[in-house]
């Protein structure tokens, strides 16, 4: 029946594998209570699992499928950005406050990423059967390029500012950036080659990268993190210490600046 709907065995296999992986990861996130730490990521995974089912049943009706697909893509893009912000907050706020300088550096890097993504999308002119298809390819390129670059900006900022990573956050970030980069490469090829015979083959590469990332996350989130329980009193103490440190450093910097200028 599935093959009669115009799907190849590869499409069916990927669809089943994709749904299974999303559902398994969602179950791990909920069952192991990781969703509390990563609510947007858990929401994205749950949404993707649901989207798989909805699109599968909507496939027979092209019009319905088209609506469901594009609404799903828009929601997915917003959730992807939310996941990157979620990772950034975990890394850049070790004691509940943004590490000094990290936020402005990351926001600046995101601004550069947005300009680069807009620029590359603007100059792309993929070969496609219809005008709409060309914009589909350009839109997908923009979305994944922005997601990829701001994810990498998180890693760059963390490295620049010497910020530490906890196990689950680093696992999420590594899988995320690798998936985003591979998908970015695929969409860049799509934007250059257009809607040709290679389009679907390249899409399979992206789908496989997605499956590998899902498997990696299932493995990462299944494991327990080393316990670093901080009592509420200690946490309050650490937050206050960080606030005082920030004030102290600002005073030293402004004092040395005024010595240099005098």
């Amino acid at each position: 029946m599935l093959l009669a709907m115009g799907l190849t065995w590869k499409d069916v296999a990927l669809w089943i594998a994709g749904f299974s992986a999303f559902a398994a990861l969602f179950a791990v996130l909920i069952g192991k209570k990781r969703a509390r730490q990563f609510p947007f990521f858990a929401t994205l995974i749950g949404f993707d699992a649901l989207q798989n089912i909805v699109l599968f049943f909507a496939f027979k009706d092209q019009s319905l499928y088209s609506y469901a697909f594009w609404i799903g893509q828009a929601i997915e893009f917003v959730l992807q950005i939310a996941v990157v912000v979620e990772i950034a907050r975990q890394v850049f706020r070790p004691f509940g406050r943004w590490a000094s300088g990290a936020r402005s550096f990351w926001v600046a890097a995101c601004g550069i990423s947005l300009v680069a993504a807009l620029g590359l999308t603007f100059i792309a002119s993929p070969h496609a059967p219809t005008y709409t298809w060309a914009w589909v390819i350009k839109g997908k390129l923009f979305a994944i390029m922005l997601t990829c670059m701001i994810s990498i900006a998180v890693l760059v900022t963390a490295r620049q500012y010497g910020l530490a990573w906890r196990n689950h956050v680093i696992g999420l970030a590594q899988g995320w950036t690798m998936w985003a980069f591979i998908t970015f490469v695929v969409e860049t090829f799509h934007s250059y080659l257009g809607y040709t015979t290679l389009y679907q083959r390249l899409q399979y590469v992206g789908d496989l990268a997605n499956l590998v990332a899902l498997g990696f996350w299932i493995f990462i989130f299944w494991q327990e993190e080393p316990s670093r329980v901080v009592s509420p009193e200690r946490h309050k103490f650490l937050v206050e210490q960080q606030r005082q440190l920030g004030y102290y450093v600002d005073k030293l910097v402004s004092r040395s600046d005024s010595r240099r200028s005098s």
Partner: protein
Amino acid sequence: MSLPYLIVAGGTVLATGATLLWSMKGVTQLRDKEWDDLLQMLQPVHFRGLELVALDHIDPHGHQLQIEPGDMWALLGGPEGLRRMKQNADIMIALAAYASRWNMVEAAIVAERMRQDAIMLKRALFRIKFDATLHRRPIRFPFYLHQVASSYYLMLRRLLCLYEANHAGLHPRLAAAL
């Protein structure tokens, strides 16, 4: 199929990939290292020279212009010395974080202080390197050297004091490596 677009897109992909590899290397390099591995990665810096330049900045006495910029450069070991300090900075922060096994609160605070020192160290090193690339030696050059020396010296002192207070057994090996 436009060749200019291929060049721009290909360049963007390559630049993004290179940045990804560089940042991933930084994230994973020190995370899982054991104490002995971290210690072996440290490269010795001439302590007496460093101390002289650092204390000239943070603990001034009479004759504050005694050490000339050329002397500072030599006392810090020139480009090799600066390179070693930059490499050691992250390792020292990792060593401070390692001490959280024995005293979580103090190690966390000290590591954060050292991270702030490292930011100042790296900014000053970047300015020195940038000026060296442009083959110029601006009037601020000795101030950058002071910042480098004092930031590194403070990091070193904080780390040694942390280990002295929390794991005296490892303190001599750490002091020797630094």
